[in-house]
């Protein structure tokens, strides 16, 4: 946006300086996050008697510290992906419901209802998860285990409520609102003239959406999903209460295994020795880098989309 030209006037210097400095403070904070995490992780990494990136166990408090990110990173990725696979279709459905199906007068109120899901704090989902969802999931999990054990992820001898699946389900609920909100915005922006073109050809509502809304909204939905993925990976307290906190790599999502970087930080911080804290900081650094990567990817998709929109205009 162009701003009118103006003469530099008295008193403007300090104010301009202050606001520019604030912008720079933000950059400094972002850099400092990286720097201080690295600095405080190094002593622990040096004391580690195993390989940080491949080791599965987490015993940084022992006199011979042994710890690695392996199992935690695996759990973070798997639980977030499962959450994403569950949440995205539902969120896209919710977004379409609000943008193209719900009666106009109700649409924004119903949209607000979904936004409320995002206002519920993580710890409350955790409490709900432990008190309600964990026992509730036992019978559907047993069902899956009984009849679908031939699908490896549903296999295993024992089925528990505090499983990877339950944690992923809570994550899915928590990231659903953000995916739905962004998708809804892009669906609402789908050009009216192309929607009308489809309708005028004799398209049903679904065919119109497939021809004119989804192709337009696809990059936005991808961005939304990536942002949701980033959220799921960093989500801490809710899953800290649900994950069984094991340090194994297993695809059996109904059994008692599962953990994540963030949950391990929350659960392990209380008893951590100085080396243990350093180890947790090192794992936090990995989480920071992964989420940074995912978020940057999300922004790049959106940036590409702008160019595409301009080209299409």
């Amino acid at each position, binding site marked *: 946006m162009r701003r009118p030209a103006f003469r530099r006037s008295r008193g403007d210097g300090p104010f301009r300086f202050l606001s520019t400095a604030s*912008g720079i403070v933000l950059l400094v904070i972002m850099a400092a996050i990286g720097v201080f995490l690295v600095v405080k992780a190094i002593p622990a990494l040096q004391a580690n008697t195993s390989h940080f990136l491949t080791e599965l166990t987490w015993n940084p408090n022992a006199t011979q510290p042994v710890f690695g990110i392996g199992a935690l990173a695996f759990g973070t990725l798997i639980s977030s992906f499962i959450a994403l696979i569950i949440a995205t279709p539902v969120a896209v459905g919710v977004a379409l419901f609000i943008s193209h199906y719900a009666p106009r007068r109700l649409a924004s109120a119903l949209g607000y209802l979904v936004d409320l899901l995002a206002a*519920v704090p993580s710890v409350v989902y955790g409490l709900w998860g432990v008190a309600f969802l964990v026992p509730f999931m036992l019978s559907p999990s047993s069902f899956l285990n009984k009849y679908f054990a031939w699908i490896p992820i549903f296999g295993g001898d024992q089925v528990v409520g505090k499983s990877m699946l339950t944690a992923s389900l809570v994550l899915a609920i928590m990231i659903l609102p953000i995916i739905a909100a962004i998708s809804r915005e892009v669906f609402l922006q789908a050009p009216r003239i192309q929607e009308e073109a489809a309708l005028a050809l004799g398209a049903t509502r679904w*065919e119109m959406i497939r021809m004119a809304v989804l192709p337009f909204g696809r990059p936005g939905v991808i961005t939304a999903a990536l942002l949701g993925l980033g959220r799921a990976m*960093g989500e801490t307290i809710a899953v800290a209460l649900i994950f069984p906190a094991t340090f194994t790599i297993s695809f059996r999502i109904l059994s008692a295994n599962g953990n994540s970087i963030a949950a391990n930080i929350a659960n392990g911080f209380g008893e951590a020795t100085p080396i243990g804290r350093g180890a947790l900081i090192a794992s936090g650094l990995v989480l920071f880098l992964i989420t940074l990567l995912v978020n940057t990817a999300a922004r790049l998709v959106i940036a590409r989309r702008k160019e595409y929109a301009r080209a299409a205009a």
Partner: protein
Amino acid sequence: MTVVTGIQPISAGRRVKDRAVQALVYLAFAIAVVPLVSVLWLVIRNGLKRFDIEFLTHSMRNIGARDAGGGAYHAIIGTLEQVLLASLIAVPIGLLTAIYLVEYGNGGRLSRIVSFFVDVMTGVPSVVSGLFILAFWILALGMPFSGFAGALALSILMMPTVVRSAEEMLRLVPNELREASYALGVPKWRSIVKVVLPTAFTGIVTGVMLAVARVAGETAPLLLVVFSTDSINNDPFNGPQMGLPLYVFDQASRPNDTAIDRAWAGALTLILIIMLLNLVARLISWWRSPAKRG
């Protein structure tokens, strides 16, 4: 080609598909609402058991592991202080950054970098901001665990939200208003303070309140840098201080029913505070633009 006359109804297959998708879309919405209803229902039902005067006015000091009674007063005080301090840090920085981006950045290199990192900052997980304050404030600078340390971590989470909402509001201020002010020979900074900010004020307040509502429920940073305590600590700059989310987490991790009841009551209190903030924010933004909503 067959000669078609009159209006041919569309094929049953297409009609069925259209209806099926419609059913799926409605179903998706229903599925999304189920957990919301379930969470709110359980929080209200279980929370009301202990949501009483004692809960709101007492701390957990001298409450044994299996005892009933006790309350979240210390946690409520802590959360209010921490959130207030976080806002005092995040709002000026966020607002000034937004002013920089809208009024001074002129789309230059620095402003594009700042803008990009504001987006990236939105994605910083709360536990990472807690770890950062732990590494920087407590481990490197040797400061004590305190409510203020928690406020620092929360402020990092608030900043990007404040920047984005303030930026959006500032961009809505019509250019004519700025021009009129410059034309009168008013220096730019005075125009911003006297004309631009007041015009955008209610919108910015709404954004800040939504940002506050978001961080008020954050637990992970408190866990790492505030530490929990069962006693009232009115001084956010010294010593462990409870926060409401942390209180819920703490009580939920204890194995007995009296603690679980307190956890639910704490969750109810927390949700009430957050919903109140949300509601006030919406009311302000609604009141700001009654004409627009028509």
